[in-house]
């Protein structure tokens, strides 16, 4: 029974990869065609219509990929009768799910389709690494992980991570376009992208939205550590880097709200904060010592 679920999960993850790949291709075609779309009068333009069509296909593929990946993650959990957050393979497929989920959720309010190319390739690479390098057979949890806090702590950490990375991608886009503008203006395809001011606001709003959730995730982790390890804070490498990420984003929010940083400086600080999160995920999980050694590698 459990093996059936594990196989099903694998098939679902593979299928979702195919869809993310299709989404990536559609986004690439969209970007290529969009170069020819003139901004003025474009609604009547034939080029505009087919570009719009392929963009819709790209998003539809992404949504389907998201649904399949979601099912794959759920099946992975069912295969071991637990939440699917026991090792690095499972963190990665859930993280990819959270990242594309954050993108799709933000898409409902903001026209972010220009970011789809980046999101689909990032998800594809994450899933590829997960399947090829990080894969471990489904197995029960070690005693320290058997706790309700696993659900609370890990889910909030993964969601926060997904949104932080999305904010990072937007901040990176900001810096890229900013450089393009100072070097003589946007190229044809980049003209479709939002204004610098919008990008700046959007990455700030994403961070401000998810920072309380990250705070909660760290505190939930502390409560769990208190019952599992006998202390709520022990400067374990994972805890230390979670703290560094928290401090970096706190500095980012202060810099914006109180000191009034905008634009380039704020974007760099946002990128720095996001990179501490990535470092924590990649380095500490795989090469780090300490108590958070659940990668299974």
């Amino acid at each position: 029974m459990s093996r059936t679920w594990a196989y099903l999960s694998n098939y679902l993850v593979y299928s979702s990869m195919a869809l993310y790949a299709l989404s990536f291709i559609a986004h690439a075609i969209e970007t290529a065609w969009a170069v020819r779309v003139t901004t003025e009068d474009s609604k009547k333009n034939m080029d505009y219509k087919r570009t719009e069509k392929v963009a819709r296909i790209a998003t539809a593929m992404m949504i389907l990929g998201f649904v399949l990946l979601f099912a794959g993650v759920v099946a992975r959990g069912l295969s071991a009768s637990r939440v699917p957050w026991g090792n690095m393979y499972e963190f990665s497929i859930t993280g990819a799910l959270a990242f594309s989920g954050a993108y799709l959720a933000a898409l409902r309010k903001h026209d972010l389709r220009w970011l789809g190319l980046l999101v689909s390739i990032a998800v594809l690479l994450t899933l590829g690494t997960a399947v090829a390098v990080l894969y471990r057979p489904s197995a029960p949890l070690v005693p320290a992980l058997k706790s309700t806090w696993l659900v609370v702590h890990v889910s909030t950490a993964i969601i926060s991570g997904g949104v932080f990375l999305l904010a990072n991608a937007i901040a990176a886009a900001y810096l890229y376009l900013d450089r393009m503008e100072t070097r003589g203006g946007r190229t044809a395809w980049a003209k479709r992208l939002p204004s610098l001011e919008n990008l700046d606001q959007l990455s700030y709003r994403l961070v401000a939205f998810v920072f309380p959730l990250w705070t909660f995730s760290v505190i939930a982790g502390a409560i769990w550590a208190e019952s599992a390890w006998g202390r709520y804070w022990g400067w374990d490498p994972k805890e230390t880097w979670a703290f560094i990420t928290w401090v970096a984003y706190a500095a980012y929010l202060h810099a914006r709200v109180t000191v009034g940083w905008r634009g380039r400086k704020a974007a760099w600080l946002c990128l720095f904060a996001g990179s501490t999160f990535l470092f924590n995920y990649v380095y500490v999980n795989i090469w780090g010592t300490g108590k958070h050694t659940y990668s299974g590698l």
Partner: protein
Amino acid sequence: MSQEIEVPELGSVGLLRYGWRQLTSMRTALILLLLLGIASIPGSLIPQRTQNPISVGEYFKNSPELAKWMDQLFLFDVYGSPWFSAIYILLFISLIGCVLPRTIEHFHSARALPPATPKNLDRMEHHTSWPAQGDELEKARDWFKSKRFRVLEKDGSISAEKGFARETGNLFFHLALILVLLGISFSSLFGMRGMAILNVGERFINTTTSYDSLNYGKLFNEKNLPDFALTVDKFVAKYNLVTSSPEDYTLDVKFAKGDLTQSELRTIKVNSPLKMGNTSIYLQANGYSPVVTVRDSKGNVAMQGPVPFLPQDSNLRSIGAIKVPDADPQIGFVGSFVPTYARSGAEGAVSVFPEALDPRLLLAAWIGDLGLDGGVPQSVYRMDTSKMTQVGLKSLKPGETFTYPQGSITFEGYFQWVNLEIVHDPGKNFALLGGIVAILGLLASLFTRRRRIWIRVGKTVEVAGLAKNAAPGLDVEMAEFVAKLKGEK
């Protein structure tokens, strides 16, 4: 040539005031905050004494010069180091200096009425005007009331303000951080943390001498150790048959508190410690204690009982030392215990499963001076064989005896041991409360929009609004307001 530079006389008070202002400025706070983040990095990359003393020891063994130099910079105790403490203490002083005046100011402004309507509303954002119908002011009053605005009505105009929760939340967030820090300090001053290794069947009475290791805060009083005793009744470890990884640990104890006359059965698991007020008892590790009987050449028992061995891998191959200082000459055994025995070409005896399915005790017997009288503390799991000679090697199954010229040793069987950590942490609830308040404050401060809306009614109705911190959403609210006034909704 140096030039005299005229420096205005500050005086010591002026200097202090200047220093205080610098310290409590937002810029300094921001730098300190980033500095705190950066200062935490080395402790996550370099092994720390509190977490990994063995790796620190290896640093000292491999490159003593570098390690000594690093130790002087407190790089093995980053989070207790003076420079790390300096950063966070300065940060918190800066925080207090920043938050307290703001709290007072906010308290005053929260009780004050909103400022009067500006004269020229057409210069403000979201300005619209239309011919008056007559009842706009009344409608506006109702609308502000239903939306819980604070209002000031004067000369046919209303100035309304909302969103004080933003600053309230912000202040609560920062005050809560101070509470968290106080909780942590309280724990480290009045708390205690001790470890005890107990074989199944053994009894533990909570006095300082019962611990194998014990650390307590500067202000902890030994009399505050709660009165309790526990007996290790049963320990069950379940392992996955394929991967050997542990699936469940269950420890049953007979627990007695107070005058120790009545005991009850309690269960301790990895995620559910035994709690008694602010004291908790955790199950931290487990292993095996082989039980041996050592006899001299005449057959007299020189030593008998369980000896805890230290696990080395996930299959619980364990190493240990059996020391018999009372024998003449002194005898010692360096041993390893494998719960499920197998032979591997490269490594010799290995364990292939953590449960004791086919246990073996592998021993090397040594005769000579155990070196225990020199006063240098020794690990109980290791033996200094520099002044000893080896007299034999043997692998024993339970019940078997190894006889050497000076006597014999019998492997009687084994016990399981558990490592209990007993923690008294009086500050953790303050830290938790601080954490909860911090999140609530954060939510209030990040998701509250502070804004003002004005209306003036004469021949025409004029409305305008102002969103602080350029918070979005006021345009929607203004549209709703205007629709209400015009009676469109």
